[in-house]
């Protein structure tokens, strides 16, 4: 709201946005409305607006959790409860007998919220969505139970008074501006995060977790930061709420409030800031104008939630996303420009090699890989072929760190590569693509590619929050690098298009562009030609060949024998997890055993 140069510009905004609306004029209008509202001198409106600001302070943080990270935090009202009781109890001297200054108590609420945000969020780091949803629900249930039972501190069912903030934010319009400023700050911070590499990484974790890991994004660390921020904002919102209510009881924090926060975000659309903000304001204000419906409000919210989920999972923002309904050109051709590769690989590195020595991997009793030796050298295309189930993709997954081999060694230039840490591969400049393209469907092609360069940013989370210079430099650099990569694979004209509108073959090239963001020393390609036309395969082959000539070691897992024999420098044939043959394409083609195993005679 205060940020005139909105960091989310219309063309580059992530997932399902209010498209053009997200331009800066809407922020200015909202900010002015908020600033000038006191001129009406209507305290009734003032109270409603304060409530909307407070809800949004919580909602802004929750939006990062729900809308960006895709974590279903249905019980986030617990942070409001926690914050409210912390501020109220500390300010009233119910803990330790010392009456805290209200502003200090408010800060303490933020800290409490942050701490518990992380605790509640822990299961989300490892487990599937439902567990986290249940944990937040359980936490909300328990916080209420504790509020009822811990009479010394919370006053039990009778409740406890909330503090009055002294000058300059004393009750009335002073407090109004306090809430307004904090809400604006929350908006600014979260939209900075949303449009930073951290925001894109969150969305990538949500929609394409494996690709995010391959790009070097460590999910736990990032989620903890988000839970800290969202919990802290929730706690602060709670502190303000206790003052606004002037007296709080456990009844004030109903589960339906949680639903309200949640639906506000979903209505607004995932991955947007303005959408959820408007959603929250509307849901807060609406009941005031529809008094007869108030008792049915939860029912209506829930019904609305059901309709959104079943009919428009992208939220209303998706419906308004005109830009992406404009038809794309029909018969598009991808024409890669391998000559641009030299601009990506601007720093040459010396020769290196990944070596697999006697690697074995069993799943239960099945030997997926059974004593495999393999060397991928820089500057070469190494083909890996073999029948289904011969261990090709498994080999690739071992190299990229998803599987821990039961025995054998995996080394890069003689040093062991860490095992079981797929997100650590990007730092070694080992990039990969996937059999089924992994993408963030709602984000633009450009943003999808930018995800590939996440580890090249130098700004910290805090710098991004405040949009400090280093953050802005990161963004500029990533943007340029991504455009270069897109131009190289021949997709630059589609940079602003939502990725899920691309054809299958275009997605294959987009994945390569994303991998190029790492300036890979090694590139692992998992059936990149699957689903491509003959002409596209030819162009793909030329591109792969050119990448290897820049010094990259390419491992190519492929079924298309013609592509393998065309571009590979060396070929390894797997059968039943073992090397059946290895050599130049010419040697392999004349290898009777290979022909029979590969073709299955």
């Amino acid at each position, binding site marked *: 709201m205060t940020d005139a140069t909105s960091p989310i510009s219309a063309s580059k905004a992530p997932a399902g946005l209010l498209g053009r609306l997200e331009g800066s004029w809407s922020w200015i209008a909202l900010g002015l409305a908020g600033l000038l509202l006191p001129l009406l001198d209507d305290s009734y409106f003032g109270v409603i607006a304060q409530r909307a600001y407070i809800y949004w302070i919580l909602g802004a943080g929750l939006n990062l959790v729900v809308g960006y990270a*895709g974590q*279903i935090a*249905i019980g986030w009202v617990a942070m409001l409860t926690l914050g409210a009781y912390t501020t109220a109890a500390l300010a009233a001297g119910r803990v330790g007998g010392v009456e805290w200054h209200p502003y200090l108590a408010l800060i303490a609420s933020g800290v409490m919220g942050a701490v518990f945000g992380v*605790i509640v969020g*822990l*299961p989300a780091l*490892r*487990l*599937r*969505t*439902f*567990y986290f*949803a*249940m*944990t937040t*629900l*359980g*936490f*909300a*249930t*328990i916080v209420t*139970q*504790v509020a009822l*039972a*811990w009479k010394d501190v919370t006053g039990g069912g009778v409740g406890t008074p909330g503090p009055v903030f002294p000058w300059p934010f004393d009750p009335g319009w002073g407090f109004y501006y306090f809430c307004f400023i904090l809400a604006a700050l929350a908006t600014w911070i979260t939209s900075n995060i949303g449009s930073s590499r951290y925001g894109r990484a969150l969305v990538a974790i949500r929609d394409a977790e*494996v690709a995010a890991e391959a790009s070097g994004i460590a999910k736990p660390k990032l989620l903890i930061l988000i839970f800290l921020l969202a919990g802290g904002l929730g706690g602060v919102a709670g502190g303000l709420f206790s003052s606004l209510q002037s007296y709080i009881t456990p009844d004030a924090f109903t*589960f*339906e409030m949680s*639903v309200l926060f949640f639906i506000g975000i*979903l209505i607004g659309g995932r991955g947007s800031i303005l959408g959820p903000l408007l959603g929250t304001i509307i849901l807060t204000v609406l009941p005031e104008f529809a008094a007869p419906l108030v*008792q*049915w409000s*939860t*029912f209506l*919210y*829930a*019904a609305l*939630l*059901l309709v959104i*989920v*079943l009919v428009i*999972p992208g939220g209303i923002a998706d419906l308004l996303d005109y830009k992406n309904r404009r038809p794309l050109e029909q018969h598009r051709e991808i024409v890669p420009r391998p000559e641009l590769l030299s601009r990506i690989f601007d720093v040459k590195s010396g020769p290196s090699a990944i070596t697999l020595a006697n690697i074995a991997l069993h*799943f239960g009793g099945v030997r997926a890989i059974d004593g495999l030796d393999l060397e991928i050298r820089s500057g070469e295309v190494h083909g890996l072929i073999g029948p289904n189930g011969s261990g090709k*993709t498994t080999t690739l*997954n071992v190299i990229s760190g*998803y599987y821990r081999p039961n025995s054998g060694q995996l080394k890069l230039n003689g040093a062991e590569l860490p095992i079981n840490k797929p997100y650590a591969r990007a730092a070694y400049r080992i990039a990969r693509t996937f059999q089924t393209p992994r993408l963030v469907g709602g984000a633009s092609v450009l943003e999808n590619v930018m995800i590939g360069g996440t580890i090249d940013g130098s700004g910290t989370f805090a710098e991004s929050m405040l949009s400090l210079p280093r953050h802005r430099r990161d963004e500029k650099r990533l943007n340029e690098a991504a455009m270069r990569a897109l131009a190289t694979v021949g997709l630059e004209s589609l940079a602003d298009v939502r990725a899920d509108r691309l054809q299958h073959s275009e997605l294959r090239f987009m994945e390569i562009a994303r991998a190029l963001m790492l300036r890979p020393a090694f590139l692992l390609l998992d059936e990149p030609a699957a689903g491509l036309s003959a002409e596209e395969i030819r162009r793909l082959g030329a591109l792969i060949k050119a990448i290897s000539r820049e010094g990259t070691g390419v491992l190519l897992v492929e079924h298309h024998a013609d592509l393998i024999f065309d571009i590979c420098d060396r070929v390894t044939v797997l059968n039943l997890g073992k090397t059946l043959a290895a050599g130049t394409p010419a040697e392999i083609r004349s290898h009777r055993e290979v022909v029979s195993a590969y073709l299955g005679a």
Partner: protein
Amino acid sequence: MFASIVSYGLAVGAVYALIGITYNVMFSASRVFSFTAGMLGMLGGVLGALFINGLGMNAVLAFVLVMVAGAVLGLVTEILTVRPVLKSIEQHLYVLSTLAFALMIQQVTAIEYNTEPQPFPVLFPIDPNSWLGIVDQKFWLPVLACIVTVLGLEFLYRCTLIGRAFLAIAEDSYAARALGLPETRLRMASYAIAGVIGALAGFTGAQMLLAFIGNQAILNFYGFVPVALGGMGSNRGAVIGGLALGLFQQAANFLVGGIFASVAVFAVFIIVLLLRPEGLAGAAAARRV
């Protein structure tokens, strides 16, 4: 005090176990955890109280109607909130769709019935001084319901072809579909059965927990804890976990107070989830790429 901890703990634990089984039966058929489990438990009590106290029905008729209502709600859950979402790419939307449906029902209950806890009638006219009355029926009813449910499910799974079809779908729904098993109809049947079990938990537990809309959230959470502890899909785990949870909660309530009990349960829940996500009894699942 010991007797009261044990009787109350086992009774409340049996209700948790039944809700846990409700989660499991729906999960096995569809890989979906539905937030309607707690709603079914809540409604079992509310509808029972409404039919008997409010409308003056006799207990047997009321019981049958409550079970029918549970089955119908189970079917509606499947048709309205699960089936459309299973087709969608983002399957976790089921969390929202089932939650939304559960909240709608809860809100209708709040408006049309009552937001305050209401008493549930005594079902069997047993003289508390006779030998039958040594243990109050509000304690043995849920335990009995739990035993009957477990035996019934065992019979279903072990002795009937439809029960084996449920197991087949739970293990490998793709292979089951290839064999020509009517997956959709079997899933609907599972949801109907889950509806009955959830309603049974609420009906038999309501003399103790009362007819109260607030039970929905409580049962949703405390019914899921045994599933998380015992491993998803494992009914044995749910029963053991549910009874242990009930006993622990009551013991803690009496010995150190309710705040500690709630916080401890929550802490154990999170710790187990983090250390053994597959449950204390479950087997680790392989990671997919």
